[in-house]
């Protein structure tokens, strides 16, 4: 009897020791410094492991996961706000808060940064890598499988000739090759004229070139309702209303394209619905 109890006790302590090791490798106090890592955390990490998100996370216009973000501590992503939270993993975007990241790394905090995926394959890689960081690889694999299935089953109308499109946004920026937006446009059955112009990434183009390109679809992007700025005067210029044969549409809502993730499916669907509308 005693021997059995002893073995049982040894087994229990061994198990608890093992779970201790396992827990040590899975971050328990994760702090996010950017909108995109907020959303990835909400999609992949266990809720009890998330300590703080950024303020954008609860904005339904910006964040795809706004509903799930309620109830978390929100910060502005500053070092002073983050340090007292005693995080064991900090996730952020490689393109934001560089100074904070540099400082946090110097202090010895583990910081993981996400890049900017510009293709479906890179979104897949991002999801899997992020899942591994936060100890939810299985959950990440599930999300990827679901996204792939949805992409394969998109009910898109394929025309023989793709409709021409051009994106024009505040400050005169258009979006060309090497971007996720371009991938979305192509997937939704559009031909992006900015690519023909040789635009790589985001580039300013003049109003004259927008008019001269004669897109069948002009996607206007105005991130904000407030149009009291010179930046908005590009997209509010009267010449765009007078452009012949063109249809003006709002571009993909920010919540679907501000960050890369499985919401890319919904973004493509959104564009493709515009496409269907245009059928005579």
């Amino acid at each position: 009897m005693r021997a059995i109890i002893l073995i049982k006790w040894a087994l229990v302590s061994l198990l608890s020791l093992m779970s201790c090791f396992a827990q040590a490798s899975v971050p328990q106090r994760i702090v996010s410094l950017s909108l995109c890592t907020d959303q990835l955390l909400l999609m992949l990490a266990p809720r009890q492991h998330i300590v703080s998100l950024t303020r954008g996370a609860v904005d339904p216009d910006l964040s795809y996961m706004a509903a799930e973000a309620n109830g978390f501590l929100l910060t502005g992503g500053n070092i002073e706000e983050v340090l007292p939270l005693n995080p064991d993993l900090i996730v952020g975007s490689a393109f934001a808060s560089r100074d904070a990241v540099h400082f946090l790394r110097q202090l010895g905090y583990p910081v993981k940064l996400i890049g900017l995926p510009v293709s479906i394959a890179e979104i897949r890689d991002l999801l899997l890598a992020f899942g591994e960081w936060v100890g939810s690889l299985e959950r990440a694999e599930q999300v990827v499988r679901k996204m792939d299935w949805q992409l394969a089953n998109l009910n898109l109308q394929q025309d023989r000739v793709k409709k021409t499109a051009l994106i024009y946004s505040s400050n005169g920026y258009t979006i060309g090759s090497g971007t996720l937006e371009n991938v979305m446009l192509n997937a939704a059955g559009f031909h992006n004229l900015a690519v023909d112009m040789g635009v790589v990434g985001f580039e300013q183009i003049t109003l004259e070139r927008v008019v001269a390109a004669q897109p069948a679809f002009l996607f206007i992007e105005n991130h904000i309702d407030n149009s009291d700025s010179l930046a908005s005067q590009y997209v509010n210029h009267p010449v765009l209303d007078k452009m012949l044969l063109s249809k003006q549409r709002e571009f993909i809502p920010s919540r679907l394209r501000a960050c890369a993730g499985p919401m890319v499916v919904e973004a493509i669907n959104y564009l493709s619905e515009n496409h269907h509308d245009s059928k005579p």
Partner: protein
Amino acid sequence: MTVNHSYHGVLIGLLVAMIGSFFADLLAGPVSLQWFNIWAAIIENKASLDSLIFFEIRLPRAILALLVGATLGISGAALQGLLRNPLAESGIIGVSNCAALGAVLVFYFGFTQWAWFALPLAGLLGALVSVVLIFLLAGRSGSTVTLILAGIAINTIAGALMAMALNFAPNPYAMQEIVFWLLGSVANRSVSDVLIIVPFIVFGGLLILSCGRFLNALTLGEETASSLGFNVQVLRWRLVVGVVACVGAAVSVCGNIGFIGLVIPHLLRPLVRHDPQRLLSVSAMGGAVLLLLSDVAVQVLSSGGELKLGVITSLVGGPFFLYLILKNRNVWG
């Protein structure tokens, strides 16, 4: 008679240069236009891609460059005559920055919907404040140093207030756009921008031109001018209102385009034999030519329109300013 002949020669020469540079500016742009399409649009009222670009984008841009250049030239000549100071210029003495401050307050805080003239009027009021301040600070002493110091102070304060206003503006792009207000541009303007400032510029320009003889008399001193029968107080205010009306309106849609008001009167003064009245009209045309040519340079040098017009005019004006200092170092010392 020879004086008149040469003056008429200068006028005709500048007029030709102005028309030439106006058409050069219409030609300059990232898209090459088919001119018969524009002709067809005018004659047969047939809209095309080319006519759309021409009438909605290029024509407003060229007209704005012409009007704003003329405004800056004539107001520079008027201010230099009024303050009897070779460095008086709307950009240097703070008039342009104060006008920009007024425009910023109206533009970014949603007051442009109040009335079509809200924006130029705000520019006018801002400019008026600065001119009154200049009079209070530098007075009629005509001391160059006092004027420049007063100008630096007003410029700095107006610039800081503008930055603060842009910081608090509800629009997230506002802060970046301080570059536009400090350097100026005529890019991406529409016909409506031209229409809202035309009444102000025409009104201000006519007021300034009507003070030509007064400026001539003023070269002899205020006492002499008043003994010659000029009502100095009234005429001075008329000139000030004229300057702030056209500068305020110009800055409110194109930002602070520097140095034209300084360079042009200095360049043209010898051609009109230092006659302040004649200097007004030739400076207007000269200013228009310089701004139109600067805009052509902007179009040629930058495809995306990132280069601000004020960069070019300052590149022309800055060295000229240094030259003036070197030349007059002993006189001003």
